[in-house]
């Protein structure tokens, strides 16, 4: 079995995995980082979005071995101690989640949106950028509000 080495949320990890192990399986089963979810098998729903080398990817459509040598960030890697990341805080402040299942993917995608589009986001941009993340609970209204507020908050942080 291949050995894979990567950094997950800043910590180096090494493991032997079957080549067919998906990154999301590796995170959930091997590392027990169960915040990253699986909501579909066709890379549509976005519940599994994590960052690989700073960019959002669907961890259900990437092999663990493909992340060899990469820096992976999951939802578990965002908060600093007890302090939520401003985007997490924005989701809480704006009721941007209900059942919570799509939430980790939404937050990781939201950060990617901010990275590429900056801190002042209009509604249309956010809605378009969220097309790879499906939520059944919120109707998106408050997710859009959360992403915009989170983006702004990230900009005002020193």
């Amino acid at each position, binding site marked *: 079995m291949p050995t894979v080495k990567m950094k997950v949320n800043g910590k180096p990890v090494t493991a032997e995995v*079957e080549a*067919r192990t998906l990154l999301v399986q590796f995170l*959930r*089963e091997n590392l*027990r*980082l*169960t*915040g*990253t*979810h*699986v*909501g*579909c*098998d*066709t890379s*549509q*729903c976005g*519940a599994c979005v994590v960052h690989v080398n700073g960019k959002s990817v669907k961890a259900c459509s990437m092999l663990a071995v493909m992340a060899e040598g990469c820096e992976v960030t*999951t*939802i*578990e890697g*965002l*908060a600093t101690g007890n302090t*939520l990341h401003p985007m*997490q805080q924005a*989701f*809480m*402040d704006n*009721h941007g*989640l*209900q*059942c*919570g*299942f*799509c*939430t*980790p993917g939404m*937050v990781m995608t939201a950060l990617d949106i901010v990275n590429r589009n900056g801190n002042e986001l209009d*509604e249309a941009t*956010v*809605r*378009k950028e*969220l*097309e790879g*993340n*499906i*939520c*059944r*609970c*919120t*109707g*998106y*209204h*408050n*997710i*859009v*509000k959360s992403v915009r507020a989170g983006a702004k908050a990230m900009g005002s942080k020193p």
Partner: protein
Amino acid sequence: MSATQSGSAAGTGIGASVLRKEDRRFLIGKGRYTDDINVAGQTHAVFVRSPHAHATINSIKTDAARAAPGVVAVLTGTDLAGDGIGPLICGVTVTSDDGQPHRAAVHPALAQGKVNYVGDHVAIVIAETYAQARDSAELVEVDYGILPAVTSTAHATDAGQQQIHDVAPNNMCFNWPFGDKAAVEATFAKAHKVSSLDLVNNRMVTNPMEPRAALGEYNTGTEEITLHVTTQNPHVHRLVLSAFNQLAPEHKLRVVGPDVGGGFGAKIFIYAEELVVGWACRKVQRPVKWTADRTEAFLSDAHGRDHVSKAEMAMDKDGNFLALRVMTNANLGAYLSTFATMVPSYLYAFLLAGQYRTPLIYSEVKAVYTNTSPVDASRGAGRPEATYLLERLVDVCAADMNMDPAEIRRKNFIPKDAFPYQTPVVQCYDSGDYEEALDKALILADYKGFPARAQAAKARGKRRGIGLSSYVEACGIAPSAAVGQLGGGVGLWESAQVRFNPTGNVQVFTGTHSHGQGHETTFAQLINELLGVPIENVEVIHGDTAKTQFGMGTYGSRSLAVGGVAIAKACEKLIAKGKKIAAHALEAAEGDIEFANGNFSVAGTDKAMNIAAVAFNAYVPHSYPAGLEPGFDENAFFDPLNFSFPAGTHVCEVEVDLDTGEVEIVKYSAVDDFGRLVNPMIVEGQVHGGIVHGIGQALLEGCRYDSEGQLLTASFMDYAMPRADNVPSFDVDYAPTVPIHNPLGVKGCGEAGAIGAPPAVINAIANALGIKHIDMPATPENVWRAAHAQQRPGQKAA
């Protein structure tokens, strides 16, 4: 009961938009959903499913699979039956027009010689790893004798159709007439005008984002099975699995619904996989875990809706509704799911009065079997079907009478001074002010300004339309006596236990289950309001039969309206007991003790003690009222006297691109009556989600089978879920009334959007195009064809 009104929007009691207590764990990735749970020695299960919609099973060969690496067991229906595990049940009886109960086909959890839909369960393969289970499932050889499939809702009962179950001749589960047929016919005969409409309520896949999962563990020492499962009602699961499936005695079965990633009805039911996993873990003496992938969810979750109807309204010359006649075929799928029979009957026909005074209503529902996945409750369950039919028909009536859609509604509304209002279809609405909601909605939507906006759109080559939907629904399910009269097998009260710990913090045990609704916050607000305890000192516990008292779970927008009242009643008991304790401690008469804002005080004095101190006294009763039980921990059950009847008017405005048929929702306004709001932020979130669920049904979602019973929409690649760029932001307001039957003054809000939205959207599209009707989902092609008055070849009602 008198809930005090001290809570203010600025505080943390009733009426305050408190941020959710549950959010933190979800936001940092520490939610604990079923598939997140792993136990020592765990095995993984994969189900072998039928690739055919209808077939006999001639043989199942499992040798190769059993011999594959890592395989622990391969079990079939023979093993299941051999262990005396009973078939899945349907819990509500509907009496057919011949006086007989509905024809219930046997529903084995693993096939017994025959499969009846694609995805039907044939065998379970259990292995050390998921990959091994999946690999070896392919080695199970099943020899099928393929039979013709029945897939059409409209034609399932036609002569010459393939017979699915011997017990149900002509594939008819029940034919259920309701109402005074002769009186309705007489009224139609002399009506000034009859408006009629044929319509399809499209089949939906409920699709909560978390796929279903189950993890079974058997303890050989205690002989107890613990089943972690994606459920909206753990106690109902336990009851049914024990009493009807003989999985284990109720006290030897623990069902846990941990964090559940959305339900919308799909996780109410007791599914084959859950029963089989519970049984198999004992059989193989190892923990067994199964998690559906999305395609399995599409195949094996109960679907929703799927009606084909004809609706007719008789009117007088002024547009007053005189009588309504509805003929519906409802598809129940291949077997009866847990509450399948109730959905197109009691939850449908009893809502056909809508917000109107229509004095006579007759409906006839033919519920049919087909070789498709079972159909059961899905967000709204019966009420969206009734509302869609009625609110679409009302727009046709308006057009036929040359009246404004708002005005024909207003004319026929039940007036606000007529409540409580007994409809001709069983329900007695307890409160409502439909005209106020309509007026507010028209202002919110700028209905008056619509013609100018339509004109401007036309100048841009687009077509604008505006559509109304004035819905009423019955939720807060339900009075047990009513359920029993209707053939339901359960009581639908709810329970609560409110326990003070000696240090003054509070644990609330509820029989409801939160899977997105925010109970941990809303119920803490109730405690704050009623007992004056800070919400951070309140923990709400649900979802584990080993922790909470028996309860009926969450569906039918019942958690606050029924479960919340049970909590309030437990609080009342605590206050009553607290007065005794405080009277003793404060050396006053019990009758002089007042309770407010968390303090027991002696009237007219400054002598007081707070509720935490009272609780401490109750657990350390060194100086305590004689004869009073120690402890500060009360139980309550609440069985409502009536449903709750949320209502409102939704207004949708669309712009149609005639070149492509694309529909853009440019504005959506909703004014709802949910009674008193405990947490307006959470309520508004429920409204948003419900509306988008309804918009999904109206524009995007449609479950399709081919004539051989293959599901063509079995993944998100083919089944269009609403996404952020399909919908706008919403304008939401309220027109509350006081529901006289609810002690807290609350109504349910979880389903209203999904009920109100579909007709509002379709009415808007019909208005934009100047057409009578278009079926859902109004996809771009269908809209384009409607706009250009073309019928898609081969496109007929299901």
